[in-house]
């Protein structure tokens, strides 16, 4: 055991006020959510309400008709553009199974909130509204 020399300082036990509060309490902080760039578009994800289900025929055509919508894609639309899924950073055991996790589900959703489609619009409000027009029939998996 090494003896530690007691070295009391003026700061131990003394309340310190934070130095970063001024911009935080006056609403002057820049979050990713309030960055505005010229010509910026807003993307909203459409997510699975089911924990485990097969995805069949997600339809973005009605969403595309909504005001301000620039594009809308399903997983199937984009699958050829992806080089792979989200890798597992730490396979705990050699036999651990790692399901393919693409940015958007193509055939099967595996958790509530798994993304199945995206809607891109000129404003966030337009994208949110249009996302409600994405139809996504799904079939529950039995497992």
């Amino acid at each position, binding site marked *: 055991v090494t003896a530690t020399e007691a070295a009391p300082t003026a700061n131990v036990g003394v309340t310190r006020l934070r130095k970063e509060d001024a911009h*935080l309490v006056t609403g002057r902080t820049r979050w990713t959510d309030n960055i505005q760039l010229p010509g910026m578009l807003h993307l909203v994800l459409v997510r699975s309400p089911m924990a485990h289900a097969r995805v069949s025929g997600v339809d973005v055509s009605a969403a595309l008709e909504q005001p301000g919508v620039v594009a809308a894609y399903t997983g199937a639309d984009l699958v050829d553009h992806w080089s792979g899924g989200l890798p597992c950073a730490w396979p705990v055991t050699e036999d651990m199974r790692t399901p393919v996790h693409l940015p958007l589900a193509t055939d099967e959703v595996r958790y509530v909130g798994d993304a199945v489609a995206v809607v891109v619009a000129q404003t966030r409000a337009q994208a949110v509204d249009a996302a409600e027009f994405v139809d996504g029939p799904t079939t529950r998996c039995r497992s």
Partner: protein
Amino acid sequence: MQKAFHTEHGLQCGYCTPGMIMAAIDLVEENPDPTEEEVRAGLEGNLCRCTGYVNIVKAVRRAAAELRGEAPPADAEEGGVGVADVVQDEEDADRLRNMEVTP
């Protein structure tokens, strides 16, 4: 209200702070002397994922007292953030004093 949030350490990352402060201002305008429970009910729906709500509630009650023209609540725990009536660091004090409130 902004100064009270600072004094009571009512924020950490600051993400929920604008909503908390706006809701708190509205709350104390309607109820100048809210109890802890009334503050909690009044801020319901504003979620803080950093610190929890204890210091936020303290901040609102401190601001309410000051807005009523009273001394801030003296019931803060010994050694807790709430007793930081004296700003230790002059730089901190200046920064807060010179805080611009316009967006």
